[in-house]
């Protein structure tokens, strides 16, 4: 099985999707001959032509508006927003159009073929505008699906799942891991389910939950905790919307403790939603308050990025505090 980094895995998934179906189109800023600023779309224009893989003008609301129209027409657009920080000009198209297309037409029309890819997250010295994690904004919008992969294998399987999903999917790629994360990825076609969490490590004392780049952070924290005989169950949520409440609840009913971590700021972050749902369904089983380890309620900083981030030591401390409560 070949080893790929996350970009190669994403490129491979797009290649498979485009080869399989003429209706699949990849476009966005610098996506064409250049292959995207991160090279996720390398060689796709060469292979599939300029009509199916192309640069767009620099206008995010235009990219997503165009993509909505294509999807409504029956095409399968995979639109790239160069950085998740720049998705906001397209917020109206995504929240008022993409998300509501099927509902408002009574299923006469839908944009289920649409996938929006966007690199997200910090840790690359990107400052305010190349670091944000905007998943919670979109999780508040019925009609969207929001997916975040943690490694190359997951990225390929989830992206193929997203492209073929009957609903529009926002696919947030942890850009810090684009080249840093490598692993075995089958060359052939495979698909991972949208809307299902994955228990990546079984344990009994505390459940530690995250998604995307935070999974690496969690793994490091859990290593430290296990050295102190704390048995951790680790869950990768994978889909933020819809999210797999049952898997999380099942785990917390077993461990009685939950630590949730994400890069995005604390207030209004998706950890709050998970905590509310879990206390509702596990109230009598909780041994400690549900802990949230997140970014601070500030814009994303630059030189103090290391201090700001919800790193493995902060997660480790939260695990210990939960168990000692």
């Amino acid at each position, binding site marked *: 099985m070949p080893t790929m980094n996350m970009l190669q895995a994403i490129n491979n998934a797009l290649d498979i999707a485009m080869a399989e179906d003429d209706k699949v*189109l990849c476009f966005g800023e610098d996506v064409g001959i250049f292959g995207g600023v991160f090279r996720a779309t390398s060689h796709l224009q060469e292979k599939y032509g300029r*009509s*199916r893989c*192309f640069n*767009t*003008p620099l*206008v995010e*609301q*235009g*990219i*997503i*508006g*165009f*993509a*909505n*129209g*294509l*999807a*409504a*027409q*029956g*095409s399968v*657009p995979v639109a790239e927003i160069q950085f998740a920080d720049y998705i906001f*000009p397209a917020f*109206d*198209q995504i929240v*008022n*159009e993409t998300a*509501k297309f*099927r*509902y*408002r*037409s*009574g*299923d*006469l*029309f*839908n944009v*289920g073929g649409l996938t929006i890819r966007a690199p997200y997250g910090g840790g690359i010295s990107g400052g305010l505008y190349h670091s944000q994690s905007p998943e919670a904004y979109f999780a508040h919008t*019925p*009609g969207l*699906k929001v997916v975040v992969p943690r490694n190359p294998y997951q990225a390929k399987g989830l992206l193929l799942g997203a492209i073929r999903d*009957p*609903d529009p999917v926002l696919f947030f790629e942890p850009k810090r891991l684009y080249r840093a994360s490598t692993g075995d990825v089958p060359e052939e076609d495979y698909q991972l389910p949208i*809307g299902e969490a994955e228990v990546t490590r079984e344990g009994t004392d505390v459940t530690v939950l995250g998604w995307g780049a935070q999974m690496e952070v969690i793994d490091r924290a859990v290593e430290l905790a296990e050295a102190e005989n704390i048995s951790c169950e680790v869950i990768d949520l994978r889909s933020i919307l*819809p999210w797999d*409440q*049952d898997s999380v*609840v099942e785990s917390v*009913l077993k461990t009685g403790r939950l630590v949730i971590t994400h890069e995005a700021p604390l207030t209004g972050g998706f950890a709050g939603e998970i905590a509310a749902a879990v206390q509702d*369904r*596990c*109230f*009598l*089983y909780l041994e400690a308050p549900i802990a949230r380890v997140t970014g601070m309620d500030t814009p994303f900083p630059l030189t103090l990025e290391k201090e700001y981030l919800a790193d493995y030591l902060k997660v480790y401390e939260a695990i210990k505090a939960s168990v000692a409560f």
Partner: protein
Amino acid sequence: MTKTQDIHSPEFLRGDEFSIPTFRLLKQDGSLYEGAQAPELPRELALRIYHSMVATRVLDERMLAAQRQGRLSFYMQCIGEEAAVIGATAALDDADMIMAQYREQGALVYRGFSYDEFMNQLFGNELDYGKGRQMPVHYGSRKLHYMTISSPLATQIPQAAGYAYGQKLADEALCTLCFFGEGAASEGDFHAALNMAAVHEAPVIFFCRNNGYAISTPSIEQFAADGVAPRAFGYRMHVIRVDGNDILAVLAATREARRIAVEQNKPVMIEAMSYRLAAHSSSDDPSGYRSKKEEEVWREKDPILRMQHWLIDQGWWNDDEEKALQESLRREVLETMKRAEKRPPPPLESLVSDVYADVTPALQQQLDQLKRHVRQYPDAYPKGARSLDPDVAAGHDASDNDASQGGK
């Protein structure tokens, strides 16, 4: 790269070096301007267009009255702009996609949307294709290639560019026509759309209904330029300005636009100059921002009367036929309205369907919870309890909660 020639003194341009003319064929009395040539328009098609214009007018007048009687929550009229909307639609292939703003019901009438179908949407009953989810006038029809209306302004314009690009790739020899107002053309989506369409050569017709007002804001407070048409040059796009109350000119201009779009895969802009004789909506009162005198001037340019005069000149129409048509349409509006009013609302389940292709477990749970609640207070929700199925009993919340907490 920009093609340019050098100059050596700072000479500024402002676009006033040329002006965009208005294409007109038909005078108000039904005769043609000198040198004007009517487009090919056989009697049958002419009458289809005219019937559609009158049917739209009758629907609009009667439904605004119904709104005033409290039978309907909201309404928007197309009055004054029937020639622009229906002339454009008649120039298309009936399989071309139309992505409209909200005031273009005439396009649907022309394509055969029945009064029953209109009424079902207006009253949001169980037969409404949109399942009672949107405010009145948000029509849609897949079989008639008319995209469901969305309230946010201008969002349909870049979508039309994308839709048309998909049509081009599918090699269907079809195009998309996108309606929008001169007010919506101020939105960012308009500019994004024109640029995307021009760069990627999408067969789309951007049809601007310049009707003078965006709610109360007159077009002179909307833009400083000479209308919307000059913006096409900035995107290197074909453009024509047309008298929007002149059915023949709109038809001829849109036919030519369609030819350019489909044969050359190029976007085209049409600016139709017209006037919103109606209020913006049933919630608006124009007397606060414009004079009766101004309205009168435009009432004299009524596009339906203008076409009627032309039809009579052709010997294709007379007063008796007019009277009979009006009467039969009025009767049909009243009958279909009564039918639609009596139909029940969509079932409670339709609250959660179509959010996704399949109802998610979380949504199913929320629906079940709602059903229990409605059963508990049936009188507080006049329409809801009627559609409840009998298998969900009230008051099971506590036991369900226990079950979810590990089945204790």
